[in-house]
């Protein structure tokens, strides 16, 4: 297994375990590599659209479906609280974890709270809707806005 793949898996393992982003130092310690080497790997993972990094080029903003920063989309599974990048990723977290979860978010127009239970069979019956203004071909033009 390449160091890059080890680092990628370590990033996702960290998010899955604790719900928050790891630092470059965390991943370097986890995979037994030097910090500058891991910083380079973060850059390569960004180029592959595996990660979205902050302006400092090393803090993880997104490791989809996980968000490295608090958002309006919260997911709780097995006692761990996660933040999702968007409504799609809010369901993506239980899909990635393969665990039942509660998704908490809101209606963007009315600010009514959403609480949606997700089981291994999927979401409970719900009339809520998902809406995206950006066409699929443009999602990565500005993925934070998307």
């Amino acid at each position, binding site marked *: *297994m390449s160091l890059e*793949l080890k680092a990628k*898996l370590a990033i*996702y*393992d960290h998010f*899955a375990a604790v719900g928050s982003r790891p630092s470059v130092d965390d991943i370097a310690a986890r995979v037994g590599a030097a910090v500058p080497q891991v910083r380079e790997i973060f850059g390569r993972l960004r*180029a*592959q*659209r*595996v990660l979205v990094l902050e302006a400092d080029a090393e803090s993880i903003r997104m490791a*989809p*479906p996980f968000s490295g920063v608090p958002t309006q989309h919260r997911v709780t599974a097995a006692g761990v609280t996660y933040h999702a*990048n*968007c*409504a*799609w*990723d*809010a*369901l*993506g*977290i*239980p*899909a*990635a*974890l*393969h665990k039942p979860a509660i998704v908490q*978010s*809101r*209606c*963007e*127009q*009315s600010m*009514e709270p*959403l609480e*949606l239970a*997700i089981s291994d069979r*999927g*979401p409970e019956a*719900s*009339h*809520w*809707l*998902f*809406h*995206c*203004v950006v*066409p*699929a*071909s*443009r*999602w*990565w*033009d500005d993925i934070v806005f*998307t």
Partner: protein
Amino acid sequence: MLFFRSEERVRAWCMTTGHPLRPLVRMDQLWELARAWYSTRLLPESRRPQPAEMRQIFARLDLAGTFWDPQSDAFG
């Protein structure tokens, strides 16, 4: 990519913000999208769906039209 309580609320939000109304996606469809994108994300063999796979996934969920066309040159 946002949640809305109803189609009426989506329409009101589009009117307020000036954003165009796009195709609406039900929660069961969104779950299938989430599974297609992320069910292997924590595994070594994980990779993001490529444009041809995306088209197949969208078609299977009756998400048709140019809005859902990933246009392969937009994906690295």
